[in-house]
């Protein structure tokens, strides 16, 4: 946007070649190495044979084992599971963000009786391990006919993502400036309009951040689909496993027949889209920040 961030301004002010800068780059490079090296290692390992992984874990593969990937793809049915996962996660995240921001907005901006109760109701939801809820949850799902359905899984994902998201967004809504909402109120806008037309756009950066967080959580969620989609086995041609289940299934099998290279290939295949999503959303954050800059 028109207002350049102060970071950029500073770049022009300071000399880029001070000792301070060198130190900064050193620190950043060191940490980046600590992150990239393992990533690279996992990726390189997915091209190795099992023997190479265990006998010479830090060396390069003698020959590229592309076969690992085709094996992972067919064995883990990654294609189907990937599609299933997307089918569940996209609506789940959209709904989570919508419902959570509604709750968070109300909690952050309005005074009403029972407000503390609602807040702590959601807060406590973050504190229980999921597995304790499984058996009762199974009954709830069975009772409502949602067992083994995608929409059932979506609702459960939403329900379990609410506490964290509400908590996160409540904090954010509190920091948003009040002038614009007040101005809109002066103009006669309803609460609904203010929320959807003013507050939600302002909250875009936070929504993206928490959306990413939910994406990661739901992407890796294993326990819920495993129990709630359990009657759907691998034998059906249209299996309803989600990716985390598929990957876990593959991982579980590692303990009985080693195919570590295949597992690494599968993990690489699964990780790449995650990385891509992050890179894409990362741009969104930048875009969202220009919205934020308006107020400054």
């Amino acid at each position, binding site marked *: 946007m028109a207002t350049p961030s102060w970071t950029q301004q500073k770049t022009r002010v300071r000399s880029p070649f001070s000792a301070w800068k060198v130190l900064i780059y050193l620190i950043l490079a060191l940490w980046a190495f600590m992150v990239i090296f393992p990533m690279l290692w996992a990726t390189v390992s997915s091209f190795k044979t099992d023997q190479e992984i265990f006998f010479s874990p830090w060396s390069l593969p003698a020959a590229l084992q592309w076969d690992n990937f085709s094996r992972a793809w067919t064995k883990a049915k990654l294609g189907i599971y990937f599609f299933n996962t997307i089918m569940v996660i996209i609506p789940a995240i959209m709904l989570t963000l919508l419902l959570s921001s509604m709750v968070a907005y109300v909690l952050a901006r309005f005074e009403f009786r029972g407000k503390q109760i609602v807040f702590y109701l959601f807060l406590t939801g973050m504190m229980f*391990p999921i597995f304790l809820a499984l058996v009762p949850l199974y009954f709830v799902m069975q009772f409502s006919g949602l067992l083994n359905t995608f929409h059932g899984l979506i609702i459960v994902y939403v329900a379990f993502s609410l506490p964290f998201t509400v908590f996160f967004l409540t904090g954010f809504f509190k920091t948003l400036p009040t002038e614009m909402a007040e101005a809109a109120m002066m103009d006669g806008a309803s609460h609904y309009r203010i929320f959807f037309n003013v507050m939600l756009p302002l909250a875009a950066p936070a929504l993206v951040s928490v959306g990413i*967080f939910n994406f990661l959580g739901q992407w890796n969620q294993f326990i819920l689909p495993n129990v709630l989609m359990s009657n759907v086995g691998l034998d059906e041609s249209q299996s309803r496993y989600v990716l985390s289940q598929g990957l876990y299934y593959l991982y579980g099998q590692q303990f009985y027949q080693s195919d570590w290279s295949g597992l690494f290939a599968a993990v690489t295949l699964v990780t790449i889209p995650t990385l891509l999503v992050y890179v894409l959303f990362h741009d969104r954050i930048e875009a969202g920040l220009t919205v934020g800059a308006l107020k400054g």
Partner: protein
Amino acid sequence: MKYGQRSFIFTFLFIPVVIYVIFVAIPYVTSMAVSFTKWRGLTMDLPFNGVNNFVKLFNDPNFWNALGHNAIALVVLPPVIITMALIFAFLFTQGIRGSGFFRITFFFPQVMSAIIVGVLWSFIYHPTLGMLNGLLGLLGITSLQNFPWLGDPSTVFGAILVVTVWQAVGFYMVLFITGMETIPSHFYEAARLDGANSFMMFTRITIPMLWEAIRTAIVFLALGAMDMYAIVMIMTNGSGGPSRGADVVPRYMVEAAFTNGEWGYATAMAVVLMLIILALSILSLRFTRRETLEY
């Protein structure tokens, strides 16, 4: 007007609260009731056990051992991770090139599959092939040659905390950067005109302006420290470490429930843990409450 507001609040809360109550609250409350029983997990038979589970818990050294590790994580993780994340975030404001690259990179461990994190760090800590012992060897520290970092009760939990920090720093860094970039630049310009240096601007402007984000981070990390389930399961291969040297309450809970079939007892553990966490979050929220800066 007032009436409109009330109906607005009701409308906005209704659907989320209903979904939440049905799918989260009711199952959890039901399971809390189980903490007063001797439920063994397979039938509808729920013999009432009064507060015996809680008494047993109080006298169970394994529980205290596990809780102790959670407490260590609670003391160590939030300050270390927040400090590191703040430093990194601060460095990013120093006008560096390639910041996009670094940001994505730093964040990435958070995205990595738990499986890979486990296998990878297991190789890093590998007594003979491992990078860590290799590095120590290069530095001439031979007394630790072949040291089993994950196989010794005195080092296993520390080794796991390192992995946790490695995974989490990037996320909080991004959180803080996002916050920093919403701080209006004229604050800094004004400060610079007044002769403030980078460090002063960081402590006098950045930290106060970021307080809400830091507070959020403290609460998340405190919650995370009381959990630690996944990472401990992965790094100790499910056992809680040699001599339970890295056990945490949620893992011990799983042992009680799944291995020993003591579901009532495990649930009691969960209830106690929940109460502790609830107290902690109320405390940390109270403790960190400050006037939010309006601008």
